[in-house]
C-alpha cells in the first residue's frame, strides 16, 4: 500500500464517533477502511449510512439510491438500536430533523449533527469547531513514482492527486475572509474560490476559476515555488503545514484536460489592432492569451523550432511533460494566436520593423545567455553549460539518441556546479542517463540552496550527492582534452552580503580533487545580445536587462513592452506570467485610447463632410 493511502486512512480514524446513548463507537471497518457508519431507515427500509471524512456530505451504501432532497425516516445506533434523532432541534439550514452523534475530533467530545435531508451539509458545528476539525487533516502527499524505478526513465515523477485526495486536501482550507494566499500569488489567483469549488467536486469549474487569472495552471501547479509564494502565506502554515495549493491547482488543471472539458473562452470583437510577441515562453504566452481574448490579432515569434521557451528547452520531461506545454499552446492557437517559428528577432526582423507592422510589441525573450565561472579548463570536452545540457536533452531529445540525431552527453561520474532549480534539473537528468554517481557542488550551505525544497528532496531521494560549501577553482583534463577531475576549495560562510545571504569565503589550503567525467555548469544566465545589436535605443540597466516602467512594463521605446527574465534576470515562470499580465493590461488601455481617438476623428471627418 502506498504511504499516501496509509495517511489517508489514519485521518479517518481521527474522527472517532460515538452514540449519544450507549457511548459505543460508530466507527466500523468497511472494505478495510475505518469509516463512520450507522443504521438508518428510509421509506421503512433499513440501510447503512457512511459519514464522509470531510464532515459535510454523507452517503448511503449501494443498496439504496438517495437523491438530493430525500428525507430519511430514522437514524439508529447499530449497537443499542436506539434512535439518535434529536427531536427538539431542527436543521439550521433546511429545518429538517437531525441526528446527533458525539465526535472526538480532538481531545474533546462534542455533538455533531447530521441533517436527515440528503444533500444538506449543515452540521451544527461552530466555525471555530469546524476549523479545529479541519486542522486535524494532515497535508496530503502526492503519490509518486518509486525512487528506484524513476531514475531509469524520463517520465513524470509525481502522479498527482486522486479526486479523493484532492477533496481531502481541499477540505483543509479554512476559506479565510481575507485570504493571504492570494496576496502571495504574483497573479493573484482566487485561491479560496477555486478550492471551494474543489470541495463541491466541481473540478472543471475550479480550473476555469484559476484560468481567469492564470492561463497555465497545469504548468504552474508543477513548477511554481508555492512554498515561497501562496503557501508561505497560508494561515494553516503558522502552526501546522499549509494547504497544498499547488497540488490542488495541478489536480484541477489535469482533470479538466484529461476529461476533455477545456472550453474556449469567449473572444471579444476584433479591434483591428495587431500585437507582436517576441518569445513564446510563459510571459509571452500569457500576454498573447490575454490580448487574443480582448480581440487583438496576435503573432508570436519564436527563435527555436519549438514553442514554449524555457518550458520546452529548460524544464525536463520528468518535471513538466512536454505534452502539457504543447496542449496549452494548442489552446492558444485555437484562441487565434499565430506562431512563427525559427524567427530570431533582431536578425530576421528588428523591433523597429515590427513596429511598422504592429501596433505594439512585447519582448519576453528571457535571459538565455549562459554564464561561466572564468576558471581554467572550462572549455574542456564534456564540460557543458546547463543550457546546453538541458537543451540537448529536452529540446533535441538527445536521451533518445540515436533515434534523434543529437548526441547525448553522458558520464559515469557527473558533477553539477550550482544550487538552483536548474542545477537540480541537470543532476536529476544526469542520473536518468545511467550515471553511477551525480554530485552537486554548491558554494554556500544547505540553508542557502536557491532550489525548491521539493526539488532538493527529490534529488536526494534519487541518490544525488551534495558537496556543499565547495567551489571549483580548476577543471583538469585528460590528454584528449576531456574533463577528468575538478580541483575544489572548501568555503565557510562569512558576513551577509547585499542579497542578505552569508557570503562564502574560501578556506586557504583546503584544496581537494573530485574525479568526474562530465561537468554541468548551472550558475545562472544573462541577457542575450542579439536583440540589442539591432535596437541600441532600448534602455537597459547596468546588468544589461531592459528597463521598464514597473506600472505598465513599457520600455523606453513607446509601444514596446517587456517582461520576464529579460527585465528581472533569472526568476520564476509565474513571475514572467505576472509581467505578461501587467503589460497586457497596460497595452490594452493604451491601444483602446488610440482606437477611441481615431474613431472620434473619423466621426469628425464624416460630420464635416455632411
Amino acid at each position, binding site marked *: 500500500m502506498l504511504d499516501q493511502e496509509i495517511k489517508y486512512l489514519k485521518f479517518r480514524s481521527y474522527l472517532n464517533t460515538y452514540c449519544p446513548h450507549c457511548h459505543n463507537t460508530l466507527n466500523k471497518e468497511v472494505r478495510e477502511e475505518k469509516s463512520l457508519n450507522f443504521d438508518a431507515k428510509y421509506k421503512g427500509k433499513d440501510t447503512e449510512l457512511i459519514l464522509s471524512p470531510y464532515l459535510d456530505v454523507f452517503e448511503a451504501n449501494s443498496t439504496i439510491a438517495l437523491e438530493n432532497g430525500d428525507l430519511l425516516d430514522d437514524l439508529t445506533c447499530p449497537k443499542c438500536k436506539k434512535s439518535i434523532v434529536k427531536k427538539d432541534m431542527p436543521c439550521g439550514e433546511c429545518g429538517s430533523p437531525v441526528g446527533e452523534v458525539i465526535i472526538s475530533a480532538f481531545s474533546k467530545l462534542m455533538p455533531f449533527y447530521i441533517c436527515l435531508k440528503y444533500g444538506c451539509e449543515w452540521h451544527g458545528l461552530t466555525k471555530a469547531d469546524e476549523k479545529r476539525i479541519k486542522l486535524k487533516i494532515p497535508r496530503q502527499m502526492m503519490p509518486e513514482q518509486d525512487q528506484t524505478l524513476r531514475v531509469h526513465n524520463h517520465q513524470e515523477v509525481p502522479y498527482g492527486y486522486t479526486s479523493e485526495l484532492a477533496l481531502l486536501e481541499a477540505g483543509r482550507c479554512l476559506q479565510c475572509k481575507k485570504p493571504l494566499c492570494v496576496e502571495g500569488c504574483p497573479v493573484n489567483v482566487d485561491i479560496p474560490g477555486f478550492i471551494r469549488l474543489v470541495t463541491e467536486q466541481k473540478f472543471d469549474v475550479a480550473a476555469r476559476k484559476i484560468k481567469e487569472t492564470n492561463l497555465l495552471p497545469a504548468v504552474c501547479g508543477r513548477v511554481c515555488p508555492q512554498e515561497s509564494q501562496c503557501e508561505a502565506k497560508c494561515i494553516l502554515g503558522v502552526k501546522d503545514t499549509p494547504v497544498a495549493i499547488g497540488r490542488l491547482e495541478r489536480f484541477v488543471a489535469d482533470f479538466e484536460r484529461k476529461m476533455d472539458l477545456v472550453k474556449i473562452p469567449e473572444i471579444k470583437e476584433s479591434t483591428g489592432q495587431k500585437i507582436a510577441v517576441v518569445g513564446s515562453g510563459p510571459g509571452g504566452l500569457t500576454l498573447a492569451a490575454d490580448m487574443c481574448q480582448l480581440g487583438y490579432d496576435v503573432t508570436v515569434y519564436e527563435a527555436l523550432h519549438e514553442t514554449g521557451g524555457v518550458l520546452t528547452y529548460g524544464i525536463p520531461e520528468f518535471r513538466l511533460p512536454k505534452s502539457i506545454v504543447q496542449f496549452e499552446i494548442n489552446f492558444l492557437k485555437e484562441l487565434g494566436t499565430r506562431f512563427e517559428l*525559427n524567427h530570431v528577432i533582431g536578425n530576421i526582423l528588428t523591433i523597429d520593423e515590427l513596429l511598422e507592422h504592429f501596433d505594439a510589441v512585447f519582448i519576453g525573450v528571457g535571459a*538565455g545567455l549562459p554564464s*561561466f565561472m572564468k576558471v581554467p579548463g572550462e572549455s574542456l*570536452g564534456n564540460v557543458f553549460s546547463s543550457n*546546453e545540457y538541458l537543451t*540537448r536533452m529536452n529540446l533535441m531529445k538527445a536521451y533518445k539518441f540515436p533515434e534523434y*540525431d543529437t548526441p547525448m552527453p553522458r558520464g559515469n561520474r557527473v558533477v553539477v556546479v550550482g544550487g538552483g532549480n536548474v542545477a537540480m534539473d541537470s543532476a536529476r537528468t544526469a542520473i536518468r542517463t545511467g550515471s553511477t554517481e551525480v554530485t552537486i557542488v554548491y558554494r554556500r550551505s544547505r540553508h542557502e540552496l536557491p532550489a525548491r525544497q521539493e526539488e532538493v528532496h527529490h534529488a536526494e531521494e534519487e541518490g544525488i550527492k551534495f558537496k556543499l560549501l565547495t567551489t571549483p577553482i580548476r577543471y583538469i583534463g585528460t590528454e584528449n*582534452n576531456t574533463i577528468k577531475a575538478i580541483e575544489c576549495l572548501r568555503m565557510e560562510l562569512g558576513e551577509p552580503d547585499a542579497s542578505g545571504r552569508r557570503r562564502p569565503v574560501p578556506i586557504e589550503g583546503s584544496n581537494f580533487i573530485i574525479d568526474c567525467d562530465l561537468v554541468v555548469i548551472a550558475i545562472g544566465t544573462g541577457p542575450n545580445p542579439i536583440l540589442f545589436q539591432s535596437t541600441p535605443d532600448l534602455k537597459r540597466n547596468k546588468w544589461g536587462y531592459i528597463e521598464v516602467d514597473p506600472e505598465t512594463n513599457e520600455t523606453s521605446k513607446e509601444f514596446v513592452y517587456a517582461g520576464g527574465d529579460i527585465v528581472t534576470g533569472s526568476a520564476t515562470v509565474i513571475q514572467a506570467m505576472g509581467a505578461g499580465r501587467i503589460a497586457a493590461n497596460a497595452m490594452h488601455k493604451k491601444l483602446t485610447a488610440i482606437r477611441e481617438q481615431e474613431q472620434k476623428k473619423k466621426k469628425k471627418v464624416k460630420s464635416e463632410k455632411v
Partner: protein
Amino acid sequence: MFQIVRKQEMAKGTIIRFDISAPKIALKVKSGQFVILRVNDTGERIPLTVADKDPFAGTITIIFQVVGKTTALLRSLNEGDSVKDVSGPLGRAAEIENIGTVVMVGGGTGVAILHHVAKAFKDAGNYVIGIIGAKDEAMLILEREMKGICDEIIVTTDDGSYGQMGFVTEPLKKYLEERYDIKLVYAIGPIIMMKNVVKLTRSFNVKTMVSLNPIMIDGTGMCGGCRVKVNNTTKFCCVDGPDFDGFEVDFDELMHRNSLYLQDEKDSLLASIR
C-alpha cells in the same frame, strides 16, 4: 517547411549545393552570416553558412560537405523536397569596407563561404586577390565564380593535379613578400589551414580575419556550446562571431572542441544505415 529549389552535386558528390526557398532570410542575410537547419522532426540542428542569396527569387544557397548522418540525409533530398526548419540569418555579418587590397584565402568547402564575402569586398570597391585550394582537382569548388569576382586568382591543389601544387600558404607568402599594400587577409577553411595562415600573416603583421565553425546547438547564444577563446576571453561564436580576428583565436582549443563528437557522429551514421 523550406523547399529545395535547386540541387547541384560537386566534387564527385561529396559537396552539395542547395538553393533553398527562404524569402525572409534571403532579404536579410549578409555575407558571413549563417543559418541553422534541421532536416526533419528527429533531426539535429546544424549551422551552415550562407554561400549566396537571391532576394528576388527568395532563395539562399548553402554548400556543404557530406561528413555525418545529417549531411548524408540532406544529400538524399532532391529538388522539390523540403527541410523542416531553417532559422536565420544568425551571427554577425562580415565587416565590409573599402580598404584597398584584400587577399581572400579559402580551402575545401570554405571557398563556398569565402566567395560570398569576396563578392561583398569586390562590390565595396576593393582590389581582391583570391587564393583557393583543395585536396585535388575534383574537390575544387566554385573556381569559375571566384574567377569572376577576383582581380587576381591562384588555385592550389595538395597533389598538384590542378593549378599550383601545395598549400594555400605558399602563394600567400609570396604575395605578402611582394606586395606592401595588402590591408587584410580573409581566411576561411579547415581550422588547420586558418591556423597556418594566421601564423604566416602574423609574421608580416597583416590583419587577418577568420570564420570559425564550432559545434552549435541553437545558434542563438543560448547553449554556449560554440564557445571559443578569443583574446583569452570566452566568446560565443554564434552571437559574437562567426568571424574573429585570427591573431586572437585559440585554434588548438577549437580543434579539440570540434573533435569531441566524432565517435557519436559515426554511431549516428551507422545506426541510420542499419
